[in-house]
């Protein structure tokens, strides 16, 4: 048990562990101390001087980010002194900050805007001096440095030094001539470098990918989980008018802290693809005919009820609900279940955070599939498919050779998202939703069961795969939550779990799963 100390912040007394900084203790008291250089996932240099607060009995204002609480301490974050100091810092920061908010990507989610609005001066005393000028620099694959907007908080430098451990950024020059420099001949090409854009409290480090794409206040945000690998980083999917415009990290101290890798960050354009299967297609003779859901579900129900040998070939990014409900649909068959897990050559770790890397297994739900008894022996399952009575393809794109083998089955049902996944021989081709279009659950490599939420509406008649299985098999669930509850009970480790238990940061379960292939 850690020692607790009692501290009073703006009249609210809270108990916090010894060694806690005032800024973190204030959060417990419901007070956000304005700050720029401080970030909970970086070392604190106390240079922006924005978080100066009044501590009773201290001779001067103290930086809340590096001052640790002491028992009985009384802190005022909103005293006249503290407020004047902050207004002073804001004024100093603004004298050289361009008024280009109307064309700045950060506008609307800019901490300089927010705090200035909150307690900045309403007019300038700087007069008509020209502001400091430095040209825009291209730092690397996705990052532009707009030096004129920089407030020298050095979060980016510290991220590269202490977290990415590829120290290529620096503070160049001195005094008010200072700017963020990049070492000669270097690029900001670390696999996790894109985080500097999120860390930047102003619009100084910006993403080329997001450049002038949308205004922050026009975005809808949905909590999701990255499908880039088996790490299961928590992300936010930002959409504008039903179009996914970017992915950003969503803090989860136990999985990805405040970071995501560039591979995951850029892994979203496919969510907006227009070449989608949009209606159920039923085979009539030698061709497929679009139909409503009802006849398609009836036909799938009939195929599943026949029993015999069934094979499921599923994507590693299919939700736990989809994998589990398809399994439940085939309860009268002898089913071979397999999941496709692309493997990369190597991991890309983020050195400063334990157990955080872009993993070799490039799919989000490998362990969810394993828990449900899905095999990772893809080739064997494809071979078995050639002699099966029913093959269900769940959002997979087969090679020509694999498609030829699968074509040998008595019946093939394609649950697909993209055009190109449909097979000529398929009895049924049914449109399903992607991770961005449904609620669901993934299980990451540490057996953390995590929810993701729908971020955009699905095209046409596409439906979640779990819903299709549920309707076709006349199973109970009619919501994702009910589907999860049913599927959880198929796996001893998950038995009894509900969406309510998972919360925003997921829940780790204990179970023995086969070790990832080749890892």
């Amino acid at each position: 048990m850690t020692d607790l100390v009692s501290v009073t912040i703006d009249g609210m007394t809270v108990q916090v562990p010894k060694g806690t900084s005032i800024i973190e203790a204030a959060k417990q008291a419901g007070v956000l101390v304005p700050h720029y250089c401080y970030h909970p996932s970086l070392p604190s240099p106390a240079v922006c001087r924005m978080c100066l607060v009044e501590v009773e009995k201290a001779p001067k204002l103290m930086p809340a980010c590096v001052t640790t609480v002491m028992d009985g301490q009384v802190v005022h974050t909103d005293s006249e002194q503290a407020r004047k100091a902050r207004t002073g810092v804001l004024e100093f920061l603004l004298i050289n900050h361009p008024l280009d908010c109307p064309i700045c990507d950060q506008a609307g989610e800019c901490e300089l805007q927010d705090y200035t609005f909150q307690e900045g001066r309403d007019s300038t005393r700087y007069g008509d001096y020209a502001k400091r000028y430095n040209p825009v620099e291209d730092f690397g694959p996705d990052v532009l440095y707009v030096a004129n907007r920089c407030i020298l908080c050095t979060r980016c430098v510290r991220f590269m030094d202490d977290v990415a451990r590829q120290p290529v950024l620096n503070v160049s020059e001195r005094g008010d001539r200072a700017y963020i420099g990049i070492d000669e001949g270097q690029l900001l090409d670390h696999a996790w470098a894109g985080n500097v854009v999120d860390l930047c409290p102003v619009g100084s480090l910006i993403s080329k990918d997001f450049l002038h794409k949308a205004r922050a206040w026009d975005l809808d945000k949905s909590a999701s989980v990255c499908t880039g690998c088996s790490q299961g980083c928590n992300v936010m999917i930002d959409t504008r008018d039903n179009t996914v415009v970017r992915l950003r990290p969503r803090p989860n101290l136990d999985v990805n802290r405040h970071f995501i890798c560039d591979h995951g960050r850029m892994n979203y354009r496919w969510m907006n693809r227009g070449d989608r299967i949009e209606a159920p297609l039923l085979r009539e003779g030698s061709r497929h005919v679009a139909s409503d859901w009802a006849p398609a579900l009836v036909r799938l129900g009939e195929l599943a009820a026949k029993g015999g040998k069934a094979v499921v070939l599923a994507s590693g990014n299919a939700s736990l609900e989809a994998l589990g409900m398809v399994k439940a649909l085939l309860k009268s068959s002898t089913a071979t279940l397999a999941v496709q897990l692309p493997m990369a050559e190597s991991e890309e770790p983020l050195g400063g955070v334990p157990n955080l890397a872009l993993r070799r297994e490039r799919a989000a739900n490998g362990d969810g599939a394993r828990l449900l008894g899905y095999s990772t022996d893809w080739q064997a399952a494809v071979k078995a498919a050639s002699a099966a009575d029913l093959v269900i393809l769940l959002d997979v794109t087969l090679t020509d050779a694999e498609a030829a083998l699968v074509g040998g089955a008595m019946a093939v049902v394609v649950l697909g998202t993209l055009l190109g996944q449909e097979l000529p021989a398929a009895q049924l081709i049914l449109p399903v939703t992607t991770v961005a279009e449904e609620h669901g659950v993934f299980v990451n490599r540490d057996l953390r069961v995590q929810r993701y939420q729908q971020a955009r509406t699905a095209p046409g008649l596409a439906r979640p795969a779990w819903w299709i299985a549920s309707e076709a098999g006349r199973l109970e669930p009619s919501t994702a939550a009910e589907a999860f509850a049913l599927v959880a009970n198929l796996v001893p480790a998950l038995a009894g779990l509900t969406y309510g238990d998972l919360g925003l940061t997921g829940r780790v379960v204990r179970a023995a799963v086969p070790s990832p292939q080749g890892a």
Partner: protein
Amino acid sequence: MGYPHPSHAKETPVLSKYFGDAGARTFEGWVKRGGYEGLKKALGMSREQIIEEVKASGLRGRGGAGFPTGMKWSFMAKEVVKPHYLVCNADESEPGTFKDREIIRWTPHQLLEGCAIAAHAIGAERIYVYIRGEFTPEHRILTAAVEDAYKNGALGANVFGSGRRIDAVVHRGAGAYICGEETAMMNSIEGKRGNPRIKPPFPAVAGLWACPTTINNVETLSAVPHILMRGSEWYKGLCLSNPKSTGTKLISVCGHVQKPGNYEITMGTPMKELIYDMCGGMRPGRSLKAVIPGGSSVPIMTAAEIEDCPMDYEGIVAKGSMLGSGGMIVMDDSTDMVYQVMRLARFYAHESCAQCTQCREGTAWTTKILERILAGKGKPEDIELLLDLADNMTGKTICVLSDSCAAPVVSAIKKFRGEFDAYLSRMKRPATVGA
């Protein structure tokens, strides 16, 4: 002595006794003049005994802060678990200060002897002498002296056969004023950007390479051999005013006096005596206007304030300024105070390390406003603005560079308001501000 002038009768030459005497530079020459006896004596004493002796002498830091030296040494751990380091601050950069340069130039062994005694007292085996980059001849002299000291056993694995190891490294700065700040200096020695660190931890706990470290000024360390040789009682007796300020102090006098130079005075000597007797007073036909008594970072004093001001830590504080480093800038009635303050602010704006917002932006903005006033483009509200910026820049940053920029501005406005108003009301012709 008032180098380059002959010693004045009212001076007390202890550290400066051999200024101008090139023979004192060599190891042999220094020994001939009684050198290294203090170190030999110290090697026969325990750490505690040396620290007690220095504490009893009342010696205080000569770099500017005036912290009691013996007490600083006593903060170092008794048990040497991690290596201890002594850093000698020879990065003399405070505008108006040029005493350490003379100590190194004429008596490098005096400094090295003091360093070795201090290293012994704090349990350090390694000394870093961080010398200002622009001190090219002094660097050459000091490096030669270190070699000389090694050759003669005053440094090395077995100092004077005592079995004690003391090594010295001369580290050359690259021209940043801020590296004279002790934690910035440690960063600089470590090869990092010379930015001041947040305290705590204090250097005695986690300094150079996170090991216990003591940092002392050149003049402080140079006084130590004399204290050991002649005793703390003698040193304590060198006091003409407040008993908390003891010994001698080198005052670098520059500006409008007849004989600028380095004067070694007994603590408590009246400031008037220094300016009018030792330095020969003002230039003919001129009268005293203002004095910056302790390097550019301290508040400006008026002629009236120096009337009965003793030169020691307490005496100058009582008059609203500080003894600081002892870099005294004397200004006569030909001085444009607004221009002088602008020059100081410009210096600080150039030297700000850029870490803290108030300093990075405030020093530069202050300079711009002062330049504008001088150019005849000031606005009446500029005075209030300068004072408010100074308030926002004081006591809010990691180190005191920002405060140092604000102090002369505030004191100049307070004491010479009329000169600002003359520019603001266009009574005075605009001055050329240069770049």
